[in-house]
């Protein structure tokens, strides 16, 4: 009897591990087209002085290896004086997503450092925003419209 219970317990554990690997421990995601998500965001964004980034910009700007990225979309302020910066990525696997998360965390911290005593209004906006990871999707959305843009993002990936 004990052996049966032990086997059942082991089977339950294995099932949990398998499910966890598929759902990134509770944060299940659905397949999203980040380009389309960005298009929807752009229709709401009020800052009209922003520009797209391309794959070649990922390494110099963020230190993100292009090979780690399955898909991405990035739209950033072009003036040099506003903090608006939206980057959404899907890592090619969990390890890649972790590396991307580390890079975007570092980028967020750098923005904090640069704005804290220099652009207090932009810093206040930044502090309401965050880097998010859901499964292999990793994003940094910095915008005065953060809540609205996050809703669009979450609706697409969750």
């Amino acid at each position, binding site marked *: 009897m004990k052996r049966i219970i032990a086997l059942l317990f082991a089977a339950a554990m294995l099932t949990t591990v398998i499910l966890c690997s598929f759902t990134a421990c509770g944060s299940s995601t659905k397949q999203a087209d980040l380009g389309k998500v960005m298009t929807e965001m752009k229709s709401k964004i009020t800052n009209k002085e922003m520009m797209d*980034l391309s794959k070649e910009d990922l390494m110099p700007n963020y230190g*993100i290896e292009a090979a780690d990225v399955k898909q991405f979309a990035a739209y950033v302020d072009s*003036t*040099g*004086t506003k903090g608006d910066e939206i980057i959404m990525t899907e890592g090619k696997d969990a390890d890649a997503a972790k590396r991307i998360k580390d890079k975007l965390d570092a980028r967020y911290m750098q923005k904090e*450092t640069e704005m804290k005593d220099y652009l207090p209004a932009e810093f206040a906006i930044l502090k309401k925003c965050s880097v998010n990871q859901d499964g292999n999707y990793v994003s940094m959305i910095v915008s005065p419209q953060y809540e609205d843009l996050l809703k669009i993002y979450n609706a697409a990936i969750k």
Partner: protein
Amino acid sequence: MTHKHSQKIILILAVAGLVTLSACGKPQNSASSAVQSVVSSQSSPQSTASAVSSNSSSATDSAASSPVSASSQIAAVFTTPPATVVAQSTKADPSYLDDAVFIGDSVSLKLKNYVTAKRKTDANFFGKARFLTAGSMGSGNALKPLSSSSIHPSYNGKKALLEDNVAAMGAKKVYIMLGINDIAPYGVDDSVKNMAKLLENIKAKSPNAMIFVQSSTPMIKTMQMTSLNNPNLAAYDLALSKMCKEKGYNYIDVASAMRDSEGNLPLEYCSDPDVLGMHFTDKACEIWINYLLTHTVK
């Protein structure tokens, strides 16, 4: 509270923040030291700037409610020629900048963004020049030790001291423009000393790199502050050119292409006329790039 009042308060907070940020750096100056250091060199060629600065000084740097007066005096400062300057040359191919790195603050960050956007349709725009830019960077805070909270730019995700990133990039030409975040906390003289020290550090790790020191650029007429204002920027540029002459660096007088007849940044070149009055539009970036490519050294 009106929108205009809010903007002024934000501006004052920003300047106060800059002063606080730099207060733990190299030899501390009081908030009024920017003015004092200029006043102390009144016998030098920038005496006109000194006079204007001391007339408009107060304990802390703040936005003036009206432009600095005595425009004829101010204009005289801007007509004082730099001690040395890279002369005009025939326009170089953008590939001249293939081995260049541009170091700068938020003014140069705009140039980086402009170039990045242009390269979407022309991969060779501005050559293969790369950038080490960080908002609020100055030579003063660039000299501070590297830490997670230090203001040093990252390249390829690696945050490092400027001299280390320049060396890692293997740059053969180093263009640097800093100063707008230095003058208020450090004053003109110490800002130039900090720049000289920073360039020494860069040269020590990249001995074969050519150094191009770019002048700081002016602000619009209506955004002059007690310490950070066009006369002090002009005095800083003049002192910078003297340092370049003494040390053998190339001095690029970008400001000369960015001034109107009174020495102010023209409104059409300014992207933030209601905020700081010193950042560039796309048109100003075009002027800047043209100036760089027509002031080259073989």
